[in-house]
């Protein structure tokens, strides 16, 4: 009798331990994967790291024929296009989030439909954004935005150069469109989490809708919205296909938004399979390593901000 109980107990325990071990291994493997990613990228780029050292990130020449590699034009392109994306995408995303949570508070059905539609923007594959950018957006921007801006404001360095359509500007706009679903969806959750007592207190003082949003909802949600924005930045920095197809793919550092550029991810996508020499390949992997650390820093920062909100 006793033996039986102990046997059953042991069997039960064994099952529990097996399950925990099995799913634990899965959980561990995710952490290992992240670590392994860093290690392999580092190993893959040792040749380039030992050859160029730290000056790699400030080198402005990218000349595969003579095996001279510098990452600065790509870092510049990534930063510039992401900055344009945030500048344009942030206000729109926050506007969307405010509209869906605050203005449609009593019309949940409409808010849901609109929310789904905006989520669909995130479901569109980036190569389709690229195709659309290449054949539709780029000529449109060239003829109706860039050319007029250049004609009347060409003396400003930002708008100098020859509007060509495939440039930093178009890439920035595409990225802005692509980060809107991310930033607005996360901000929407953050705004939904603001306690109603915050709003009611303001309303009871006779505040208008906007005053409630501006003075009690947004301050409460500030760090969460900041986190959402940083998450959007991470997306913009890592985005590859759409940017590759519209940025013109010429390594350059210039203040002009209307000249072709290059980003970290775009150069990797374009040149990786053509890299003839081991050093060339290694330099490209090192660009990936830079991208890895930038993305890691951005994501950890964003997650910490968002976790604190919860």
């Amino acid at each position: 009798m006793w033996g039986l109980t102990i046997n059953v107990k042991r069997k039960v325990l064994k099952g529990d331990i097996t399950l925990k071990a099995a799913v634990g291994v899965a959980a561990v493997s995710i952490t290992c994967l992240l670590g392994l990613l860093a290690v392999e990228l580092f190993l893959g780029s040792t040749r380039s790291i030992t050859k160029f050292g730290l000056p790699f990130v400030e080198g402005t020449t990218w000349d595969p024929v003579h095996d001279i590699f510098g990452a600065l034009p790509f870092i510049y392109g990534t930063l510039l296009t992401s900055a344009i994306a945030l500048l344009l995408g942030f206000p729109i995303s926050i506007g969307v989030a405010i509209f869906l949570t605050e203005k449609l508070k009593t019309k949940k059905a409409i808010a849901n439909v609109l929310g789904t539609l905006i989520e669909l923007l995130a479901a569109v594959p980036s190569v389709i954004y690229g195709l659309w950018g290449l054949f539709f957006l780029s000529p449109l921007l060239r003829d109706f935005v860039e050319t007029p801006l250049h004609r009347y404001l060409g003396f400003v360095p930002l708008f100098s150069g020859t509007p060509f359509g495939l440039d930093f500007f178009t890439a920035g706009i595409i990225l802005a469109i692509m980060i809107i679903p991310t930033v607005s969806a996360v901000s929407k959750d953050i705004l939904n989490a603001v306690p109603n007592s915050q709003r009611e207190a303001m309303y009871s003082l006779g505040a208008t809708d906007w005053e409630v949003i501006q003075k009690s909802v947004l301050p409460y949600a500030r760090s969460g919205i900041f986190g959402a924005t940083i998450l959007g930045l991470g997306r913009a920095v890592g985005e590859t296909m759409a940017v590759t197809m519209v940025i013109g793919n010429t390594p350059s550092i210039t203040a002009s938004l209307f000249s072709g550029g290059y980003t970290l991810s775009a150069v990797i996508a374009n040149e990786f399979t053509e890299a003839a020499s081991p050093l060339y390949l290694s330099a490209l992997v090192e660009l990936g390593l830079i991208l890895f650390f930038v993305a890691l820093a951005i994501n950890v920062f964003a997650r910490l901000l968002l976790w604190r909100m919860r």
Partner: protein
Amino acid sequence: MVQNLESEKVDLIIAGISLAPGVARRRRIVNKVMTGLVFTAVVLAMVPLVLILGEVVLRGAPAINLSFLTNLPRPVGVPGGGIANALVGSFIMVGLATLIAVPIGVGAGIFFSEWPESRLSIVSSFANDVLAEFPSIVIGIFVYVVIVLSTKTFSGFAGALALSIIMIPIIARTTEESLKIVPITLREASMALGVSRWRTVIRVVISTGKSGLATGILLAVARAAGETAPLILTALGSFYFPQGLFQPTAALPLLIYTYGISPFRDWQTQAWGAALILIIIMLAFNLSVKFFIGRRPAERAET
């Protein structure tokens, strides 16, 4: 006088609003203007969606017919080229990636939801969040360095591996979310009947949360089907049907990219046709998740 000023200041700080005549009108106008701006933002966010879908349908529809779906690509200028190999390649790679990603993703999700307090759970769940937002091209480089360099060939297997790394965090997160909302009372009822913990997890928790699990897997499949960047470095693409897992393999997004940036008109037309097919697949996945399985677990948890 001084006191008056001070009390006004306090009033301003606490309420941030003034009730003086004339100010009220301005406040109403500001409110209207801001409402207008916020609404404009929604319109601006919608415009690209409409334009993209419209453009893909307009340009893609003329390219699509039965032979487009069943033929192999043909050289430039030869009519009748199709995307059959890309469809097959995508199907194989996404299928294999799903087979790899589901056990790991679901397993990790179970761990996150059932042992949330453990240190491993906290660390791993954080790593999972980071991985979920990671640039997919970096994952492509990783698989290139690990698999393509050592097998000395671009391959469908490498592509599938890259896609599975993209799918794992999505599946893990949705699994966790859908299991966490299974009421604790259900677990307690099961355990009170003497059912062991592991049986409770498998029989009660998972079977209650399985629609959420399915949602996560569908979303992950949809995401993987549209990924391009990592496949450039791993599967490479091909003009033929895949003959095995260890050779360059075609995929729908790769074909859209290659044809789209080519200077040839009929290839560009085919790129739009392929884009329409891809977008139909994506929308089917995403909308079926919305309408058939129900709302996303994250939303259900809130209400």
